[in-house]
């Protein structure tokens, strides 16, 4: 007969445990003091919202909201003959004729919250998906000119660049059967313009009322506040996506429909599993010709290395990346075709000139001087990225050779910071200027970039680091609640379309002029340059503007972002896109490509 008196004690203990939870569950709740919070103070209350969700594990800096491709377009324009040289098209030639079939699996940097161009802030991945399901009113040709695409024609009214008459093609229907007419265009445009978030990038250029006039069923007139000779370029991006008015109206009532886009594009929305895969299938009745692929699937893979790995293993057939390490990895495999584009954005550290200490130009210059650019190019850029002194690569016609960035000079920085601290000691501690560096959490590359920059800056600055969620990060930047952030911008194909980030009028409570820097004389130059098509004048003006940007010390340019769109061996036709008038169109733009001309062989 067993005697286990001591077992009882154990049982008691365990049973006590269990029964207490039962008792607790059974009885009413007694008073509890388990508190989650102790310190009374909390950090600032800015919190996340529905702005864009670019993952940044890919790039050293972040994307702007409203897409760098919002109403104002992207990339630096180029002379005709240099096109081939700037975008390195590494696609196989001599591949035969297109055959239908195949599913293209595309690896993206991140997933997006929604796919409604009128209300979702589309970042690079979002714009990529949009390219499958929407068509734009205009498109960039290989010479850097915006030609009509969904639109039939777009012309200035009597040569006045502030009034543009747009005529759209007839006989096109949306995926849901709604016919395409000018009202759809007007609705897309106006909804976007009125959206409190997305509209921020659109509103500054149009009058409050009468931004667009309906002329007839297929014609409308856009009325701008100032002449802009490059307005057609504004319709190549998010502003130019045309969505089904039926869908837009329905989505206003039921916002879950934002996940199910309806456009006119070569592919129709099929299914979406957030953070996993979004699928589009061929649109057999596409208006601009034959579509070859059966389907396109987008797979968000935030880690750049993993994404590259998946392509090399054959789990995906294509990807977009701007991560130097991933690009090097892809370079090693000769079967991978890459389209490399250096003409898009620049990565930089951006200073907030609206609040101390960087409201003082000496602090700004000091930070620039102290930046360890050489180490950055070597250790983060991995020799793949080219240093940037301005918004244009050396091959660009707007490139100003007199503008050079003086960095890697901690001694000179110290002189300035000492001077500043002498005058404004309250912003300094131990003779160094106090500042905070902010960037999105969750990216190892950004952590490394931050550490590296601090190495150089710590001679003159006391740097505290703040990593916050991506959404919050963009918000804080817009609200001007930062000292220095790591950022990416200025990828417009024509510089006129980057004005939104620089004009005085976009400095505000919510400011797209992120550094909150207003210079009326700079505004004048910018507006002048957008109003004329005379090359020589423009070149001169932009060179002046670049000099100003340099002298004002607002952006510490680190490198030109290198985008690579990589494809498996059997993917072809990426650069064969043409407009309805058979004008060859630009292959890639800011890390995005289009899908109508792509086909796959065995």
């Amino acid at each position, binding site marked *: 007969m067993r005697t286990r008196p*001591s077992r009882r*004690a154990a049982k008691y203990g365990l049973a006590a445990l269990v029964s207490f939870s039962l008792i607790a569950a059974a009885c009413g709740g007694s008073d*509890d003091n388990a508190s989650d919070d102790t310190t009374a103070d909390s950090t600032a209350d800015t919190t996340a919202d529905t702005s864009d969700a670019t993952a940044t594990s890919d790039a050293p800096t972040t994307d702007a909201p409203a897409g760098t491709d919002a109403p104002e377009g992207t990339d630096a324009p180029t002379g005709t003959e240099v096109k081939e040289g700037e975008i390195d098209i590494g696609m196989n030639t001599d591949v035969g004729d297109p055959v239908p079939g195949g599913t293209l699996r595309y690896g993206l940097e991140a997933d997006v919250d929604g796919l409604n161009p009128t209300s979702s802030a589309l970042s690079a991945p979002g714009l990529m998906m949009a390219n499958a399901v929407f068509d734009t009113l205009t498109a960039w040709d290989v010479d850097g000119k915006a030609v009509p695409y969904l639109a039939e024609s777009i012309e200035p009214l009597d040569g006045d660049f502030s009034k543009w008459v747009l005529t759209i093609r007839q006989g096109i229907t949306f995926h849901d059967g709604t016919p395409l007419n000018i009202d759809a265009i007007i609705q897309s445009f106006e909804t976007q313009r009125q959206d409190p978030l997305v509209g921020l990038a659109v509103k500054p250029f149009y009058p409050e009322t009468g931004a667009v006039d309906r002329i007839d069923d297929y014609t409308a007139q856009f009325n701008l506040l100032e002449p802009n000779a490059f307005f057609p370029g504004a319709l190549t991006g998010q502003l130019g996506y045309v969505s089904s008015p039926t869908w837009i109206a329905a989505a206003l009532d039921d916002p879950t429909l934002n996940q199910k886009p309806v456009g006119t594009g070569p592919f129709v929305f099929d299914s979406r599993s957030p953070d996993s895969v979004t699928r589009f299938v061929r649109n057999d009745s596409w208006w601009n010709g034959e579509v070859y692929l059966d389907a396109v699937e987008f797979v968000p893979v935030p880690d750049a290395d993993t994404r590259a790995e998946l392509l090399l293993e054959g789990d995906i057939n294509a990807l977009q990346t701007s991560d130097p390490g991933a690009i090097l990895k892809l370079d090693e495999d000769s079967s991978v075709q890459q389209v490399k584009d250096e003409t898009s954005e620049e990565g930089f550290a951006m200073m907030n000139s609206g609040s101390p200490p960087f409201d003082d130009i000496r602090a700004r210059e000091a930070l620039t001087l102290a930046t360890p650019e050489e180490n950055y190019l070597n250790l983060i850029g991995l020799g793949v990225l080219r240093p940037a002194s301005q918004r244009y690569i050396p091959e660009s016609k707007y490139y100003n050779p007199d503008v050079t960035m003086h960095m890697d000079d901690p001694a000179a920085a110290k002189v300035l910071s000492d001077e500043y601290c002498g005058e404004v000691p309250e912003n300094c501690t131990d003779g160094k200027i106090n500042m905070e560096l902010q960037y999105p959490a969750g990216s190892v590359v950004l952590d490394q970039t931050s550490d590296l920059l601090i190495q150089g800056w710590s001679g003159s600055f006391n740097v505290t680091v703040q990593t916050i969620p991506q959404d919050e990060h963009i918000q804080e930047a817009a609200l001007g609640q930062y000292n220095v952030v790591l950022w990416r911008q200025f990828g417009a194909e024509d510089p006129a379309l980057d004005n939104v980030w620089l004009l005085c009028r976009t400095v505000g409570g919510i400011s797209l002029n992120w550094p909150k820097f207003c210079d009326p004389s700079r505004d004048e130059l910018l507006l002048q340059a957008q109003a004329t098509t005379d090359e020589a004048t423009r070149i001169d003006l932009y060179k002046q503007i670049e000099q100003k940007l340099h002298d004002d010390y607002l952006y510490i340019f680190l490198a030109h972002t290198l985008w690579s769109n990589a494809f498996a061996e059997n993917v072809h036709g990426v650069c064969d896109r043409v407009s309805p008038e058979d004008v060859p169109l630009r292959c890639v733009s800011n890390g995005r490509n289009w899908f109508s001309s792509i086909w796959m062989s065995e």
Partner: protein
Amino acid sequence: MTDLSTHMEHGQANLLADLGQMPAQDVTQKGRRLGIGFWLAIAFMVVIVLVAVLAPWLPLKDPEKSYVIAGERPPYSPSWQFWFGTDQLSRDMFSRTIWGARISLTVGFSAIAFGMLVGGSCGMIACYFRGRFNAIISFVFVVLLSFPALVLAILITSLLDRSLFTISFTIGILSVAPVGMVSRATTISFADREFVLAARSLGARHPRIILRELLPNVVIPMSALALLGVAVAIVAEGGLAFLGLSVQQGITWGKLIQNGAGRSDLEDAPWIAFSPILVLFLTVLSLNFAGDRLRSHFDVKETAL
């Protein structure tokens, strides 16, 4: 973060299981020598703590500085110049691992110190006093236990700042409940014992009883638990860091591991992640081992009950 509750509970369950063992067993287990393994583990801990504390005065390379060799791109593999190699920014991994110990160990020890203080005393007092008080404290414990640990940690750190204090405090809070449970269970087994009853009958007052009679007996199994707990806390910090949610400023082991855990880094430069992993592992191992040995050595059985 599997380990936090599991380990605590495992330690507790083991404790209780041992408490319930047959006297026959006790003879073989009780008084088991601590053994050389125990002292090795303790020695290792002492060394690590010493090195961490003395780091600023040791001839280590600057943990934040990039030692780039011209013509060669980092990361550099382990060599005489860099004992643990360098990371992608060519910072010395050996130095960084040691400096990482400072924060990681601080978090571990202070978190458990907090947990022990609060949880231990609550548990002891609760059990001793029984009744209403007991029920309330137990309820609190269960609430804390039922909250998914990591979620609580993330919640707190996202709503407050991510300073050393907050992180330590958060992990400390998480350890209060398991510690409290064990402390209570241990106290239970003592509160009825003769010497307590004797003290009571002699007219000793409650605080005196708690301090003089109970505490010394409870402390020993608790210190075993403490060692285990520190290990868990250090791992907890590592887990948080891996999700990018640990201490904002400064180097921790978790951050170091996160930095080196990228796919291509693992393939091309595994030492970036494995240096901190190795040291972390050895530390946790030592703590676990020492705690385990301590527990089985000092297991007070209910002999003669």
